[in-house]
């Protein structure tokens, strides 16, 4: 269990005054202080950790966000920015002495500019909401986390989220042009704009993935892209994880970069098939979902090439989707994977390390050994092209020992990822969950350097406390 420090008593003592102050800045419905109404905000996608905040505010404009931060800064009160609360690393977990600034009412699309291929949206617009707003014109917003129906662009910026198609289209940071941010002191700043590559330090780059540590984002200028003529998925099933991994290498090595290249092991295939009925091969040890884009003719050519490569690896089955519906069903299984595992085991931890793809067979073998050692089941789903693993560790939350074993198992996997040349988190962020593992990947000097950047934006360390940086390093 990850330890959280005690709340600041002086802030708790001033609770009523702080709430009264917030009520002066926002409409009545914009301040939540009643315990029962605070409850929905006590956790995020990492549900094992819960803490009711001091209060929640729901600002509707950048000016309101600025007024709230100015006030809280003045009062020395900590702030937890929150989008949809789908973080899997506890990034949006409240603190007892902190005010949650929830951006969901900043939910308007402010501008869509097809000629310049960009859109300006407020932080609380959902990821899918951007694509829905532009898809009639054939455009889309590329990063597509599986949580895209719920998660918000502000949260995506917070985590630098990825998705199944980032092998081709990049992650959040590769698809942004500008931000409007509010500093902890309540200053409103414009970063970038509708143009490419603003001169000066890359604020867009350092803010993206900063997990609410540096500023609150209120508006985002995203790149929107014209969609391809079409896309088609295929399934390739193999006799072992090793063989499927070698096939991934061969595809990439051939000069083809599929738009998506997803891997599932046997437990994941079974869980997802039970949920999506996509016709996944239940006799396989490993399965790849491979998607290509282009005209029908181009899809055929690419799929033929990929099929020829797969044939060299003695596949159990190869199936090319024959229709848009079939492709959709194939993706439904993958995108619903976490929910599907949730049906077998009500509680699971989703890990998110990245490894060099050449180390895949070895890492999967070690994970299987750990699974036996800890007596906990694991299903592996991951973005194969870029080595981003998502082992889902299943446990029983009613059994504290099972939870503790799951956490240790997870930490072992992530440590292994770093050992083989990878990293702790590929897209879900450090949050609370991996905070105390940061020392596995970084030296004290490197953490101190990151901390000094945090100091430059938030000298009082009021933004999203007790996350990302190991507590000892925070205190230093």
């Amino acid at each position, binding site marked *: 269990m990850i330890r959280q420090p005690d709340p600041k008593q002086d802030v708790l003592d001033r609770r009523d005054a702080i709430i009264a102050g917030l009520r002066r800045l926002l409409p009545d419905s914009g301040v939540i202080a009643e315990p029962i109404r605070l409850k929905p905000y006590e956790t995020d996608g990492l549900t094992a950790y819960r803490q009711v905040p001091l209060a929640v505010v729901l600002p509707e404009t950048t000016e309101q966000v600025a007024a709230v931060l100015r006030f809280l800064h003045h009062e020395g009160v900590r702030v937890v920015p929150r989008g949809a609360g789908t973080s899997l690393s506890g990034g949006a977990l409240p603190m007892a002495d902190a005010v949650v600034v929830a951006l969901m009412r900043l939910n308007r699309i402010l501008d869509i500019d097809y000629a310049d291929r960009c859109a300006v949206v407020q932080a609380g617009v959902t990821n899918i909401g951007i694509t829905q707003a532009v898809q009639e014109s054939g455009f889309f917003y590329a990063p597509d986390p599986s949580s895209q129906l719920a998660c918000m662009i502000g949260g995506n910026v917070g985590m630098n989220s990825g998705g199944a198609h980032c092998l081709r289209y990049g*992650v959040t940071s590769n698809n942004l042009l500008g931000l409007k941010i509010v500093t902890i002191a309540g200053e409103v700043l414009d970063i970038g704009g509708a143009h490419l*590559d603003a001169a000066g330090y890359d*604020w867009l*780059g*350092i803010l993206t993935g900063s997990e609410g540590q540096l500023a609150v984002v209120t508006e985002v200028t995203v790149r929107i892209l014209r969609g391809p003529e079409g896309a088609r998925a295929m399934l390739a099933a193999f006799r072992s994880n090793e063989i499927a991994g070698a096939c991934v290498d061969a595809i990439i090595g051939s000069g083809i970069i599929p738009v998506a290249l997803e891997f599932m092991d046997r437990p994941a295939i079974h869980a997802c098939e039970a949920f999506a009925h996509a016709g996944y091969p239940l006799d396989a040890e490993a399965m790849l979902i491979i998607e290509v884009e282009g005209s029908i003719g181009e899809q055929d*050519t690419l799929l033929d090439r990929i099929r020829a490569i797969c044939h060299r690896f003695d596949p159990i089955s190869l199936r090319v989707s024959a229709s848009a519906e079939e492709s959709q069903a194939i993706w439904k299984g993958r995108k619903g994977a976490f929910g599907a595992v949730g049906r077998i085991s009500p509680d699971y931890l989703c890990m998110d390390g990245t490894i*060099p793809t050449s180390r895949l067979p070895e890492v999967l073998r070690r994970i299987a050994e750990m699974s036996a050692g800890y007596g906990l089941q694991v299903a592996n789903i991951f973005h194969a092209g870029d080595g981003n693993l998502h082992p889902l560790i299943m446990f029983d939350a009613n059994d504290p020992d099972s939870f503790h074993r799951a956490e240790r198992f997870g930490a072992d996997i992530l440590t292994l990822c770093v050992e083989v*040349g*990878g990293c702790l988190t590929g*897209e879900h962020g450090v949050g609370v969950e991996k905070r105390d593992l940061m020392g596995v990947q970084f030296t004290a000097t490197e953490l101190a350097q990151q901390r000094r950047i945090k100091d430059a934006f938030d000298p009082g360390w009021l933004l999203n406390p007790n996350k990302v940086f190991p507590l000892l390093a925070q205190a230093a």
Partner: protein
Amino acid sequence: MTEAEIIAAVAEAHASATPLEIIGAGSKRGLLRPVQAARTLAVAAHSGITLHAPKELVVSARAGTTLRDLTAIVASAGQQITSEPPDLSGLLGDPAVPPAAQTIGGVVGANLSGPRRVAWGATRDHVLGVRAVNGRGELIRSGGRVLKNVTGLDICKLLTGSHGTLAVLTEITLKVLPAAERWGSVALTGLDPAQAVAALSAALGSPYAVSGAAHLPAEAAALVPALAWLGGAVTLARIEDFATSVAYRTDRLRADLAPFGRAEILDDAASRAAWDAVRDAVPLHGAAGAVWRVSVRPSAGPGVLAAIGRAFAASWFMDWGGGLIWLAGPATTAAHDAVMAAAGAASGTWMLLRAPEGLRAAVAVIPPEAPALARITASVKAAFDPKGILNPGRMYAGV
């Protein structure tokens, strides 16, 4: 030269508060503000490939490795440096530096990207990891050698484009991608800037994955042999893919762009020659005076050109769908003010790329930041380089 020697040199400079000019091969010394430093630390001698894993799409090199060597290594595996960094030596023309000497440290330090940027991202989008020495003489690593990594603050991005003012890059890991089998281009002729940008927007908004979109007025096109024969202004859209796709897509694109006029299709060789010239700003190589790079939203490009045209007669061409304007004009404060005003009015960004030292020292070479942001810039600079010894004043006076 080893990393340990670089660490020792910076640590010593930190201890004695001695400003250092950080260069790779020095090919971009003429960019931005001149640095006043007692000593020069030339990282070019710290070179060599340290990791090449084509199946994992990564390559790592010491910062002094030349872009040419790095390009050759990845090309041997059929891959390319995706952001297509330009070679500015033809533009900057420093006789002390041989052509093609630029190092990967310099390319990343300046975040230089070529025509492919518009579709596949800037150099900063392909930097997976760095090793660097901050102004305290400490080694810091950020990112790594894997394609996806959100662990901790993204210092890779902060250092990319920081022009050696925050840390000395010692090693860089890049994501690389397969080089396309074939290039092809659709070339429209005789368009004015507004028509050209509209055509390029249509091309970039098409489903054919256009990977380059440039417009050269007649005077500029005449200076590029691969385009001069077209006679007049040339508006160019590139497709890179497998050969069959290039044939199909250029054909479809030409049909889609028919409302803008009759178009020619350039073959692989002509496309490569034309786009290399666009990348390296060949049309401006012979221009006298100062050179600027202005980046605005593409639809604002023609207006920016018109505003500048009212102030002075510029040589110019456009890349990135009209969003990137390369400009040459008189090396005067008045001309610089006109560029700043026009780019500023379009809410864009700009960089004074080439000018006599006097002008570069006297004016803002990139847009000044709003006061609150300028304070953060100063704090972040101090967070890396508390004594201000690394390339002092290169980006902003006093930073």
